[in-house]
């Protein structure tokens, strides 16, 4: 297993948006998906997802709905809105630019 790394500031939103772009999902699901996709490399306290989710909901990027879940309890399912999709595009684009810039500097400096 690799050493875990802290998530850079402000990137949690991007990751959550990306995960939700695959389809609606509850908080637990988002956490598991992040863990699996990052191969558990991210040092993520799973609870921090929730303030992020509520924040994005308040900004209208995602909406939520209660529905029965797989373990016979109800869960809150989150879904991207149009604004959220746009936000995801913008944030991914700027992340790409940042990544390229950092890579270039790391290669040539």
């Amino acid at each position: 297993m690799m050493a875990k790394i802290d998530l850079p500031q402000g990137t949690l939103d991007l990751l959550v948006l990306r995960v939700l772009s695959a389809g609606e999902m509850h908080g637990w699901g988002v956490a598991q998906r992040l863990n699996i996709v990052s191969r558990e490399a991210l040092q993520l306290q799973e609870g921090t997802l929730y303030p992020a989710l509520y924040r994005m909901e308040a900004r209208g990027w995602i909406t939520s709905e209660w529905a029965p879940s797989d373990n016979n309890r109800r869960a809150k399912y989150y879904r991207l809105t149009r604004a959220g999709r746009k936000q995801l595009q913008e944030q991914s684009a700027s992340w790409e630019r940042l990544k390229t810039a950092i890579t270039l500097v790391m290669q040539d400096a």
Partner: protein
Amino acid sequence: MDRLRQIRFKLRALWRRRALDAEMAEEMRAHLDRLVAANRGEGMSPAEARARALRQFGSVSSLEDQSRDEWRFRWVEAVAQDFRFAARQLSRSPGFAVTAILSLALGIGASTAIFSAVDAILLRDLPLPQADQLGIVRMGPRDGAPDKGIGPAITGIGPAIALEMVERARTFADVSPFTLTEFDVRQGAAAERVVGMRVAASFFRTLGVAPPLGRDFLSSDDQPGSERVAIIDSALWRRAFGGDPDVIGRALQLAAERVVVVGVMPESFRFPELFGATFKPQIWTPLAFAPGEAADRGARYMSLLLKRRSEWPWEAVRRALDTIAREYEVRESATFGNQQLRAVPLREQVVAEKRPMLLLLWSAVSCLLLVACANAANIVLSRTTARARELAVRSSIGASRARLLSQLIVESSLMAVIAAVIGIVLASATISLGRQVLGEFLPRVDEIAINWRVLAFTTGTTWVTSLIVGLVPARRLSAVAPSDALNRAGAPTSIGGRWTTTLRRVLLVGQIAVAVLLGTVALLLGRSLEAVLHADLGFQPDSLLTFQLSIPDGAVQRAEVTSLYSGLAERLKTRPQVISVGALNLLPLSGGSFGWGFLVRDKPLPPGTSLPHADVRIVTPGTLESLRISVRAGHTFAPSDAADNLPVAIVNQTLARHVWPGENPIGKQIKLAGPVKVLPWMSVIGVVEDVRFESPDRAVAPAIYRPQAQHPWSSGMSVVVRTVGPPAEVMPAVREEVASLGRGIAALSVREFDFYLSRSVAGRRLVTTLVSAFASVSLALALVGVYGLFAYAVTSRTREIGVRIALGAGRERVVWMFMRDALVLGCLGLAIGAVGVFAARRLIATQLFEIQPMDPPTLALVGTAVLVTALIACYLPSGRAADVDPTRALRTE
């Protein structure tokens, strides 16, 4: 875009906060449960699995708190928290809170009430359309004309001239003549005397109002011989007709005539109180001059209501009137010589007389507001300094400067808000009380209401003061290193600093100065009131019963009037409680006046001067005796001074002094202006003492007394009954005797004379009471300030005092150290207060009677009282300094 959406979300969240909280808790709990289950699945023990899950998840409460930020307004809640904290702070030191809030509330309440009254009475336009274009025209001495002290300054205009003016003045304005009168409104045997006006048909049109019920006067109503009609106000409509909407066309029985009601004025209509606050007309009839009356040029009882064109300023109106007056002067020098037509804006006519009094009250209450602000500021200052430690602790555990400031702002605001609420209650109570009791001596009382702009101003002033004063030291406070503040916990002065102490001393000097100023004014007013109450009125107002007779038209022939009154007097005198009885045309101090121009035999008028003017009193035999007006020369009237005998008159000392200086007036001849047939030459048979007829504090006008039998006077007169014992006991006898006269004759306003006496000093009494109350409050606040400052000084200098005593300073010396300080502050305040009195001396003098504003004994008395009480207030805490135990004082730190 996002922010807008966020705010919308938060606003919606306001309603379902509890639900949101619950959903969040449920969601997080579910997540935790799954984590625990997953850990169990890896073979951990329940406790281990739970501990790990919590580590994986993070701090639930902190996450919840972070999340909640998304649906709450953070700063609002911070402020709310500040408010709760402030409320706890205030209730923890109730003494401080109550003093500060009460003094603020008192300041806000009193000044709001008085500012509102001043605004309503002095500043607002009269409640009439285009009120600023309305004015009243009467006659008065030309500016700069030599004042011989004879006659009242201002009179009406003769009817003939008034009618000519309507034609002449048409070029520059609407002009509408009117005159005042009284009507006895009769309902069966009962009668009521109502103030009314006889007006030209155009009067209400000039005024800009019309009766909503019925019609306005028509010019045909104003013709002699046409049916007599009347317009009444809503109060009389309710009293006489029970508010019947079908009143139009119904008859109203007046003593002298029967009139048909053609219009009712609206509830909201109040005729401007042009001739004093007791002048509240309720009925209007057309002039409908008889031909003889319309030709009268000398009887000056008419006034003109004038509406200027909006483009003509009052100055232009006055010039135009002056041109007309000068034309008259050439033709009618006896009437118009050195007299002019004076136009006075309507509002000015209504309020001018009361302006100085209201301005004085306004100034006094402003002083009170200042003192209240200073007091609150002082308290806030001392609190902020005393709380240095608390603030330092809070800042050391992370409270930002902004947070501390907001805490202090909220505390000051909470105080101001509570004070404002109490202040509103106080002000509205004062105003509603005032509206009930002030109507008799202040104009426009009905129009006074709480003025919200004024309230905002007074509250704002107090709030801003306490804010500024509270925040300035707080700013310095938050700049102090917490360790510093904590280490010197025993000596918080080092934090408040010299600056705060200096500010408190300045505020205190100001408070003492205001207390001295208000105290002096209050004492001057009190002594004036005392002087007025004990002024020699020229007659004896006690043990007098008065009433008026209402005589229906035609019930009594003119020739019978004399015997009617003498008969009534004789029968009343048979009662054991009655000493003597008389009757006269106008009661002293009743607010009316009745004057006439007069001529003196062998003393021709200097060319270009108009007739001198004197009050004319028509009296029956026994009147001077009943009023106890003493005869200074000659003798009083006798029943033999009858219609057919030699016409006689009695004059007062003022007239005798002005007309016959150094001569014996007895036997001299005078006559009232008018045809000799009606108003013959009269021989002066006596000189009586001056009577303060108009008001106890006003100069005496020249007066001529005539026997009723020789004067064509038939209307109801005022009867005066001198009694042994309480006058009220004679009331039943009076009613009985008047009823026995029959012929529909009724007694009106049966009252003890005290009624008129107290009414005539009511305004003075009110001002004195209010200013005294303001002075007491400001003195009390100043003393609280002195006490507070020195209590604080003694506490904060305990160590220094200990050192001094340990080094051998006598305890008296220590106490003296503080007392000397108080003495310096007190003297400073005293000096500034005296300067204040000097600066306001003109305004103060307007309300004084027989005393000067810079009255040395008064100033000395107030100064001594303030200084002594201030020294006592200082001694109470300073005395404790002497009890300081040096060994313990040195250990206090």
